């Protein structure tokens, strides 16, 4: 409504016109301010925090590129890390050349990653985008395994499992920035993250981006209107590979090492997890997923050795109960937020959270004890979980865990009924508000 209003009545003086122009970009301006301030927020203003933020930025670019593929074009790839990893290799080889005396500033190294990703994307995209669906998924899987095996073989190019290293301190120092501190690297990554996010966002709005959606939803119809579905898929694939390569270039600058695992199946799987958990075909969802998963990978692994198990369970819960991902869950609540029944829905959530936490506690206790016993049998049956000393040889921890799990599930099922009733009320009210505004 705002946009329509401002177009109907052209602004009278320059000042409000400029302000209206700025207002259009308010999300992007907010993002710039946020990214500039984040590394100085207490708690993140240290090397660990800045490194975490850098990893999130890299993951966000990678996830956004995958979102273009899976979310916008409907191409499920099991080998997207190929373009990330080969981009990273292109970047690290450029960094080595710079270390050898090539006068290029390090800030441009990620572009080498993007170029590498684009090049490989054009080659593999030409052969794999002729078909969509399961055939495409299988080709991507095959190419992923093929490139991973090749990288382990070509020791001179890839360094194999050990990888190859370079130093990001070399080259001409622009504005005195030598990338010695994690803060410098963070700002470089934040800059490229913003640029890629903006480019990918506006790409979706272009005619090609719209055609990607058309090809995803109904390829026959798109063909009938006169567009080659294969060419559209190829374009989307090449663009996605470019940004995956850019993310790989950022990875090379951030870690100063690239190894064969950068193209591996585990990385391809994790980007799929990020995008799906965040929300397929939702632009913000991909970023949300990248931030969530990176945070889980970094922080959860400090607390428990079984973090991958929890990540897997989280993924399965999303696939089964919330196919729209985290962003989908949020979007479901947006129309309800204005209804009067929303307060009672929130109250029902607050009540339901308690038994769910109890059940989760029981399940986590069982998993943790089992995991510890089987992965570290030499450590014995005594362990410390949540600052409490436990002996798994006695029945008590098992009984507590089982009791918490059973009581929690039982109570949660009852609470779910209240939530469902509150949900029905709120959505009925929202539907009525839509029908009779």
């Amino acid at each position, binding site marked *: 409504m705002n946009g329509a209003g401002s177009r109907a009545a052209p602004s009278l003086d320059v000042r409000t016109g400029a302000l209206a122009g700025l207002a259009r970009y308010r999300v992007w301006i907010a993002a710039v301010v946020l990214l500039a301030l984040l590394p100085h927020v207490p708690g993140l203003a240290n090397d660990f925090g800045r490194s975490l933020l850098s990893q999130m930025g890299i993951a966000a670019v990678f996830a956004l590129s995958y979102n273009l593929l899976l979310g916008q074009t409907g191409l499920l790839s099991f080998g997207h890390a190929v373009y990330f990893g080969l981009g990273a290799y292109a970047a690290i080889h450029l960094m080595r050349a710079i270390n050898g005396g090539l006068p290029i500033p390090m800030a441009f190294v990620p572009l080498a990653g993007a170029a590498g990703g684009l090049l490989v994307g054009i080659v593999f995209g030409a052969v794999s985008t002729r078909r969509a669906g399961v055939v495409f*998924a299988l080709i991507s899987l095959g190419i992923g395994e*093929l490139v991973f*095996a090749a990288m382990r073989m070509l020791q001179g190019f890839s360094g194999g499992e050990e990888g190859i290293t370079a130093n990001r301190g070399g080259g001409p120092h622009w504005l005195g920035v030598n990338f010695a501190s994690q803060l410098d690297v963070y700002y470089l990554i934040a800059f490229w993250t913003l640029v890629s996010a903006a480019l990918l966002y506006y790409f979706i709005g272009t005619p090609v981006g719209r055609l990607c959606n058309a090809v995803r939803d109904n390829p026959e119809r798109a063909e009938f209107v006169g567009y080659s579905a294969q060419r559209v898929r190829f374009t989307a694939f090449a663009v996605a590979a470019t940004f995956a390569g850019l993310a790989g270039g950022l990875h090379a600058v951030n870690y100063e090492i690239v190894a064969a695992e950068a193209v591996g199946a585990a990385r391809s*799987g994790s980007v799929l997890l990020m995008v799906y958990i965040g929300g397929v075909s939702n632009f913000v969802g991909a970023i949300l997923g990248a931030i969530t998963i990176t945070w889980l990978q970094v922080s959860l692994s400090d607390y428990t050795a079984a973090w991958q198990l929890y990540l897997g369970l989280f993924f399965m819960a999303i696939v089964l109960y919330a196919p729209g991902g985290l962003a989908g869950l949020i979007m479901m609540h947006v129309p309800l937020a204005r209804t009067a029944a929303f307060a009672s829905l929130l109250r029902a959530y607050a009540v339901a959270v308690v038994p769910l936490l109890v059940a989760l506690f029981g399940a986590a206790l069982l998993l943790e004890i089992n995991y510890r016993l089987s992965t570290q049998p030499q450590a014995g049956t005594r362990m410390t979980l949540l600052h409490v000393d436990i002996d798994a040889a006695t029945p008590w921890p098992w009984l507590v865990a089982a009791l918490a799990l059973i009581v929690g599930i039982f109570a949660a099922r009852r609470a779910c009924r209240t939530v469902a009733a509150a949900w029905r009320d709120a959505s009925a009210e929202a539907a009525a508000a839509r029908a009779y505004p």
Partner: protein
Amino acid sequence: MLELVTFSLLNGVVYGLLLFMLSSGLTLIWSMMGVLNFAHASMFMLGAYFSYQLGRYIGFWPALVIAPLVVGAIGAAIERYGLRYVHRQGHVGEILFTFGLAYLIAELVIMIWGRNPIENRVPATIDFSLFSLFGTSYPFYKGLMMAISLGMFAFLYLAFKRTRVGLVIQAALSHPQMVSALGHDVPKVFVLVFAIGCALAAMAGVIGGFALLTEPNMAAALGPIVFVVVVVGGLGSIPGALIASMLIGIIQTFAVALDYSLLDFLRQFGVTVLRGSPFYEICSIKIAQAAPLLPYLLLVLMLILRPRGLMGTRES
């Protein structure tokens, strides 16, 4: 030379038959239900672990029967309480469900049996020499593996081509409403197909677990190869899966035995690649080193050139 060829051929056939056992269940599930089951190799792994655990209490032969039945029951439960609900979200939802399942099963196996490989030795009851060739004795369990694999082929081929149940299952995929209207319980047919597929994979795991290292990574290592077999053989074709698995088994075992590189090949024509040139590394790779790469090369080429596979009748 004859000895090398004979043993490579024999090992290739054994490896190929092992691959066939694994992929027959997958091609069954895929062609009947349209589900690309990423957790199929995980069922193979569960078979290996269960038979190891059961074998310690009840011996090898009962474990050979019971472990696949247990895994089949697990497969039925997965279809009934998981896959059926994801089915509404379409193929991507199904693929992601089985993808997550494979991830979870590997983690659960770590939780129960630990991260390190277990000592899954060939039991004494089947560890004796079958015959001896060129002074090397050939173990009985490899013969057993071949026999079970061929038995599986015969069972699947006859069950689907010659029995009424097989016809109903085949019809249930293409015309579920019609089959349902004729009085058959289509959801139950799907549960049955998924359970049989999983049980076949588990039986392969019981017998194949000895030949490979039984560890939590085995599913992730084998999974992609099984897809290669199914794609190359042709979707839903049991004879195609047999041919493709033999082909891949034999190619891989022969490639491992070949100690030549492109460098040697070029030298025969008087071409030498200088050590400093950028092509030196690629040319110096031996065929034996490139062996793990060959199946995936075959997969990609097959999907590009002939997506329906060797014996397939339709694209996926």
